[in-house]
C-alpha cells in the first residue's frame, strides 16, 4: 500500500561499520520530553508570558531523576514479587502486592514517573547501543523509536483509571495497545540487531526544516496578518527548501499563487478567513 513506489528513499552507503550518531540520537530521545518542557518554559518566559520558571522546571526534572533512581534501587530488592505485580497493575491498578509500593509513591509527581517509565529504560537502551553493533540500523533504530513511543504512551496514560470490575477504564485500552506496540517495537529492533539489512538512510535538513518552518509560519500568521501575507510568506519560506530556486521566477509565481488563493478560498469556496492584517481593518 506504499504510496510512493516510484522512488525509494536513497540508501546512504555509510562506509564505517559503527556509527556514533544513532546511540546519541537515542540518548537525546531519552531526555527529549524533559528538554521540550524546559525549552517551552524558556520560550514562554522570554515572550513574557506567565509560566513556571524554566530553571525551576529543570531543577524539578533533575530531582525527579534522582527520586526515580532511589526507587529503582529500592525496587530491585523486591524484584521477584514486583514483576508479576507490575503486569497485573498495568491493566488494573488493583494489585495487592503493589499496595505498599503505591502507598509510598502513589502520590508522586508525574515527573518522577516520566523518568522512571520513559527516560531510564531509554538511557539503558542508549548505553547498549554504544556497545552493540546492529546489522540493520534502519530497523534497529526504527524499532527503538517505537519502543520509546510506547513507553511515552504508557507514561501519558499512567494517570488514567484501569479496569473497573468487568468494564474497561479510560486507561485500559491505551495501556494495552502501548504494551503491544512496545513488544512489536522491541521485536523489530531485535530483528534489526541480528539480521542483515539496509542502514539508516541519510537525513537531509534543508527540505524538512524550511517546509516545516513555512507551515508553522502560516499557522502563526494566518489569524493576525491575514491570508495575503501568510500565503506569500510561507511560499517564500518553503521555496528556501531547495537549492534550485531561482528567485525572480519564484516571486512571480508566488504573487500569482497568492492572488489565486485569495480569490479561490474566501470567495470561490466561501471559507471564512481574513484576507488582510487585522490592524488595517478595511
Amino acid at each position: 500500500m506504499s504510496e510512493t513506489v516510484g522512488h525509494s528513499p536513497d540508501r546512504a552507503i555509510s562506509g564505517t561499520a559503527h556509527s556514533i550518531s544513532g546511540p546519541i540520537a537515542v540518548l537525546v530521545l531519552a531526555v527529549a520530553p524533559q528538554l521540550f518542557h524546559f525549552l517551552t518554559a524558556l520560550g514562554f518566559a522570554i515572550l513574557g508570558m506567565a509560566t513556571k520558571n524554566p530553571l525551576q522546571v529543570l531543577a524539578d526534572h533533575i530531582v525527579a531523576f534522582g527520586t526515580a533512581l532511589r526507587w529503582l534501587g529500592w525496587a530491585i530488592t523486591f524484584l521477584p514479587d514486583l514483576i508479576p505485580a507490575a503486569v497485573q497493575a498495568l491493566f488494573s491498578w488493583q494489585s495487592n502486592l503493589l499496595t505498599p509500593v503505591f502507598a509510598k509513591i502513589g502520590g508522586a509527581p508525574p515527573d518522577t514517573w516520566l523518568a522512571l517509565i520513559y527516560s531510564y529504560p531509554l538511557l539503558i537502551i542508549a548505553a547498549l547501543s554504544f556497545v552493540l553493533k546492529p546489522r540493520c540500523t534502519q530497523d534497529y533504530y526504527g524499532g527503538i523509536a517505537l519502543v520509546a513511543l510506547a513507553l511515552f504512551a504508557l507514561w501519558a496514560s499512567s494517570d488514567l483509571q484501569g479496569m473497573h470490575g468487568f468494564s474497561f477504564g479510560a486507561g485500559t485500552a491505551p495501556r494495552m495497545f502501548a504494551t503491544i506496540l512496545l513488544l512489536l517495537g522491541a521485536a523489530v529492533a531485535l530483528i534489526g540487531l541480528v539480521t542483515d539489512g539496509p542502514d539508516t538512510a541519510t537525513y537531509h535538513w534543508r527540505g524538512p526544516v524550511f517546509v516545516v518552518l513555512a507551515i508553522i509560519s502560516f499557522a502563526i500568521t494566518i489569524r493576525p496578518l491575514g491570508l495575503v501575507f501568510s500565503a506569500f510568506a510561507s511560499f517564500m519560506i518553503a521555496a528556501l527548501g531547495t537549492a534550485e530556486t531561482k528567485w525572480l521566477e519564484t516571486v512571480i509565481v508566488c504573487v500569482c499563487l497568492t492572488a489565486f488563493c485569495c480569490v479561490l478560498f474566501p470567495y470561490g469556496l466561501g471559507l471564512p478567513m481574513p484576507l488582510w492584517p487585522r490592524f488595517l481593518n478595511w
Partner: protein
Amino acid sequence: MLDLFSNLGLGFQVVFQFVQWAPSWLGGYSIPIPVNILLCLIGALVGTLVGVLPGIGTIATVSMLLPITFGLPPVGALIMLAGIYYGAQYGGSTTSILVNIPGEATSVVTTLDGHQMAKQGRAGPALAIAAIGSFFAGCIATVLIAVLGAPLTKLALAFGPAEYFSLMVLGLIFAVVLAKGSVLKAIAMIAFGILLSMVGSDIETGASRMAFNVPELADGLGFATVAMGVFGFAEIIRNLDVGAEMSRDLVQQKITGLMPTRKDLIDSAPAIGRGTVLGSILGILPGGGAVIASFASYTLEKKVAKDPKRFGRGAIEGVAGPESANNAAAQTSFIPLLTLGIPPNAVMALMVGAMTIHGIVPGPQVMQKQPDLVWGMIASMWIGNLMLIIINLPLVGIWVRLLRVPYRLMFPSIVVFCAIGIYSVNNAPMDVVLAGLFGLVGYWLIKHDFEPAPMLLGMVLGPLMEENLRRALLISRGDWSVFATRPLSAALLFVALVLLTLAVLPTLRKKRDEVFVESEG
C-alpha cells in the same frame, strides 16, 4: 431483483437532481442546474489535476481535497469525494504512462507497459485504453455493489460487538498481508495508529487521555490533519532530498492519435474482462485490495499471453488488465464500508472521516435510514467513471503541460494549498502545526521503511475496535473467550490467524515478494 432496479433508480434520481437557479438578474427566469453532476465533474477534474502531480498519490490527493467538500450538503459532498477519488486514481495512471512515475502503488504496474507505449508514440491509445478499461470495470463493479449491498447489510445485523472486533482484526491483518514490506513492521504501524486514535476524550468516561492539557488535543487528533501530514507534507519533504531527485523522463513527442485502433481494442478486451473479475473479487476483501489486484492481473495477463516476451515492451494488455483490475477493486472496496461500516483501506478510511464530519456514521443503518445518500453515491460512481472518459481524454495535453512545471515551483504551491486546506477544516492554526509535525513523523517513517498506510487504517479503526472490544467484554462479563466461542467471531479470527501464518511462512513470503519485485524489474 426488483429491489435492485428501484434502488439504482433512486440513486440516479439523486444524481440527476436539478436545482432551479434563479438569480435576480435573470428577472424571474430560472435555470435548472444538475448540481450533483456538476459536483461530480468538478471533483473528477480537480482530483485528476492534483493526482497528476508526480509523487502525490491517491491518499494524499483525497486528504488535500477533503476540506473543499465540507461546505456542501452531505450527498453532494460524498458525490464530489467519489469524483475526486476516481480522478486521483486516473491522474496516477496518467503520470505512470507519461513520465514513468506512478502516482500511487496501484498504478505501479501500469508504468511497465504504459510508459513503453508512450515512448513508442502510443501514449494516446495507452491513456484511452486505461480510461476505457476503468470505465468498463467501474460499470460492472457498480452493479456488483448494488447487488451485494443489501444482503451484506442483513448479514451485518447478525454481528455483535465480538464479531465486529474480530472482523476488524481480520481487516487489519488483510491490510498487512497484502501490503508490501515487512509484516511485523506493518503490524507495529497499526498499533501506532490505534494508539494515536486514543488521544483525546474517552468515549465512555469522558476522561482526557494523553492530551497533556492541550485544549486542541482534547477532541483528539484530526484524521485529515494526520493524513495530510504523513502523506502530503512527508511526500513533499522527501521529494526535496538530494539524490531522490526525480528523473523526469517526460515523453516529449506530441501526443497524436488518441483513439486506440480496432486491433488494440480486440487485444485488450479479454484483458479488461479478466482484470475486472479479479479486481472485483479482491476489492471486496478488506485491506488494500486494489494494489494486489493490479499486480495479480498483470501476472495473469503475462501467464495467459501467447507471447509473454511482449510484456514490458509496450503490450496493451499490460495496461488494460491492471487498470481495469485496480478500478474494479477500488470500487468494490466501498462494499465493506457501506454495509459493515468498516473501511478496508486508507482511502476508504478518509471517506469515513468525511462522512463523520457530515454527521453520517457508515454502517448497516445508513443503507436503511438514508437510502438516497448510499444509492446516490453508488450511482455517482458510475457517473464519475463516465466523466473520466469524457473530460480526461481531451485534457491529456493540459496534464502533460502541467507535468513540465518544475518541482521547485510546484512544491511551495502545494505546501501553501495544503496549509490553507487544513486551516479551513476547523479554522484552527494548531491543526496546521500538527500536520507539519506529522509531516516530520511521516518523513521519519519513510526513512526507516515503515508504511504509513496501515497506521492510518489503525487510526480510523482504533475507536471502533476499542468500543466493540469494551462492549464485547462487558456483555461476556469480562470473559475473553467470547471471541473464540461465538462461531462467527471464531471463524473470522481463525481466517486472520491462517493469513498471518501464511504471510510469515518463508516460502509464501518469497512468492509475495516476487509479485512486487516483478514490477520493479
